[in-house]
């Protein structure tokens, strides 16, 4: 159940990133509502999961889903660059962030 909450929290985070894009495209108050609801939901689910899971592990998985999800969403939904160097550098950030959270 706690793991399902982490995965759902990560999905909420990706929806939040889509909402950020929506806000920048002047989608009005619905984009702001979506932004607020998705991140509030994401944090609530994450803190619920942390009641039973180790904090670093939960955080690492949550960050992982959020970063990978928002990169893929950017590429496939918003046509952001698919260049290999961009993916390499994002992977470096992702790998280090997940590592830091696992050992912290």
């Amino acid at each position: 159940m706690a793991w399902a909450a982490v995965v759902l929290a990560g999905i909420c985070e990706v929806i939040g990133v889509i909402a950020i894009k929506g806000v920048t495209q002047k989608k009005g108050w619905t984009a702001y509502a979506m932004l607020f609801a998705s991140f509030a939901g994401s944090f609530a689910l994450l803190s619920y999961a942390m009641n039973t899971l180790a904090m670093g592990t939960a955080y690492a998985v949550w960050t992982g889903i959020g970063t990978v999800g928002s990169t893929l969403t950017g590429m496939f939904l918003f046509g952001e660059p698919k260049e290999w160097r961009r993916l390499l550098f994002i992977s470096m950030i992702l790998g280090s962030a997940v590592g830091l959270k696992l050992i912290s």
Partner: protein
Amino acid sequence: MNRHWLLVVLSGAVEVLWVTGLKHSTHIWEWLLTALAIAISFYLIINASKHLPVGTVYAVFTGLGTAGTVLTEMIVFGEPFSWLKTLLILVLLAGVIGLKLITGQEAADTKKGADA
């Protein structure tokens, strides 16, 4: 460094403030400052995302936030120093710098393409 990247780096710094706030706040005004910091960091990434790819902005925002939080825990809150953590932070920063370098280039390439 151009203005949009400055916004992303700033948002990461503000993120460190609110992550620290979430963990260490005890008084009502500390919680209010934490909420204010959350609002400011989102304001910054929204503005940066108007000009930079949102996937890049989000990766850098969460990455710098993580690195900054780990550093803050070591420097301010007395977590023990760790070579492994320091190495991971350096790899992370290299990723951020790399993204910054190629993102400028992509924009220039696109502009060149548009002009041609």
